[in-house]
């Protein structure tokens, strides 16, 4: 449902642009929540080793399926592993999938988009068909299919998600490059004999930055959802490593009489998606990207 209309490239960016953006961002409550939560999660992921008292893989059979206690803040799972610690550690695969997928998508999508848009021709035609192809079929179809081929693991999850999400930034950049190509000043630059790569680097990419930033942010919640969902299906993170989706899937036998088994991972999934969504939303208002969500 994401329709991106291109910004008019005439806007003049001045030094105060980012300051204004931050001011607008601050006014967005959801965005601020997102910023705080994501910061907290990142701290949690980085310093998990120092925060949690009990290792996420430490099994204690005498204390399985215990509801939250003073020792186990979120209770224990069926193998007596500390849920709090597992929830903390599970932020790592979440962040890795969420962010790395978008990074790789950018790395693939931006060059392809620029070349397709700027050069045109057969290359443009192929890229356009690819974009159409990947927008036409649901992402999880492709991802599930690729996971089937590659075997479930963190790396393969990132690969599969990248393959489905590079079209986002690619489309953005391609559209921009297409429109920029016809601009007078590009024409002028070309006439002056400036190399193509410099034109692209100096003129096309800067204009794309806010859009790409937003596209980057808006892609994360989808990846987070995908990680949780696929791990839930048993096609993502492999046990015994913790992942919220996996924990949810593993609670399948016990959640009925041990609700803490699904409440905490479920809550974390939802809060994270909301936070990243909030960040993206805030970014949109802040840098005034003209998009309809």
């Amino acid at each position, binding site marked *: 449902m994401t329709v991106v209309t291109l910004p008019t490239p005439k806007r003049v960016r001045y030094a105060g642009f980012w300051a204004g953006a931050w001011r607008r961002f601050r006014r967005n409550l959801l965005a601020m929540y997102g910023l705080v939560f994501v910061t907290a999660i990142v701290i949690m992921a980085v310093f998990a080793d120092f925060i949690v008292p009990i290792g996420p893989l430490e099994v204690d059979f005498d204390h399985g399926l215990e509801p939250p206690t003073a020792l186990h803040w979120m209770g224990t799972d069926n193998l007596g592993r500390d849920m709090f610690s597992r929830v903390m550690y599970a932020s790592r695969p979440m962040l890795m999938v969420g962010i790395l997928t978008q990074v790789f998508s950018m790395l693939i999508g931006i060059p392809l988009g620029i070349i397709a848009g700027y050069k045109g021709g057969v290359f443009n035609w192929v890229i356009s068909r690819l974009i159409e192809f990947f927008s036409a079929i649901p992402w999880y179809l492709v991802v599930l299919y690729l996971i089937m081929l590659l075997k479930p693991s963190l790396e393969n999850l990132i690969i599969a998600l990248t393959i489905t999400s590079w079209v986002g930034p690619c489309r953005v950049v391609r559209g921009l490059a297409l429109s920029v190509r016809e601009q007078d000043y590009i024409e002028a630059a070309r006439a002056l004999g400036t190399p193509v790569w410099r034109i692209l680097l100096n003129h096309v990419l800067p204009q794309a930055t806010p859009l790409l930033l937003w596209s980057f942010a808006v892609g994360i919640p989808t990846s987070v959802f995908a990680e949780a969902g696929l791990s839930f299906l048993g096609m993502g993170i492999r046990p015994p490593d913790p992942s919220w989706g996996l924990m949810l899937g593993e609670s399948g036998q016990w959640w009925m009489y041990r609700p803490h088994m699904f409440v905490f991972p479920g809550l974390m999934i*939802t809060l994270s998606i909301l936070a990243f969504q909030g960040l993206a939303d805030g970014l949109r208002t802040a840098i005034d990207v003209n998009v309809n969500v």
Partner: protein
Amino acid sequence: MLRYTLRSLGGILSVVFLLSLFTFVMARAIPGGPWDVAGNKGTLTEHQINVFKAKYGLDKPVLEQYLVWLRNAVTLDFGSPYMAPEMSVTELILKQLPYSALVGGLAATFAVVVGIILGMIAAARQNTWIDIAINSFAVIIGTVPGFVLGFVLAYYFGAKLHWFPTGGWQNEPKYIVLPVLAFGIPAIGGVARWTRQCIVEAMSSDYVRTAYSKGVRQTGVIVRHVLRNAAIPMITSFLPMFPAMMTGSVFIERTFGIPGLGQYFVQSSMSRDYPLVTGITIFWALLISITYLVTDILYGIIDPRVRLEGKKR
């Protein structure tokens, strides 16, 4: 219009063709196969694997297999799933689709009805606390994954209150309530926000202002101009929701154990059931492409301003 339709159909067919080639060849290019995952990993001997391959023609070159498959596929014969050899892939899809369609269709209807109502209220009470409340609700609910909500609902209404079964499937109405809610509620968010936006945009458009200035009464304006104009983007957005949701959510089906198409897709991917994976993929791709096409055509009918030839999606 006709030319556009034909051209789009051609495009769809070429996408589907490429997709089939891709899924077919890729699946077979990766080492291993259905024989070592169908519940007997490592127990089959070389000979048993060869017997399996010979039975399903997997011992032939991939290209030859594909051509045979393509010849049959033209007549909608996608072969038999390895997991259910007594039926064809088409039969299996047609047999399991109703479960997905029922749950997804009801969920989509629920989401659209509730979402439109909420969106209209929000638009009518623009920038009041009601608007803010609805908008916040829509944003938050839109981010809750269906499978998480499924657990909450199943726990509260199933395990605690015993109103509904906690999962599983029998052909009884009570089994459908929680899956529909879990699937439908998160979808409300998007519907409500989009509805509000469409109506607000329509209300602030020039012709509405013109109509007001001409002295047309408010109800008349809303019915004749606002709703009519807001309906176009709404219909074109909400319509594709139906086929998308009716083909099933893998996650909801897994949470509640619904024997729908989504589960079959996961199951067949896990056991590398080539005919079924390919069949379901193509079915989905076809369905979704056709939905977009129909939406585009509808768009043209409702809104003559749109010249389909030039439209970019």
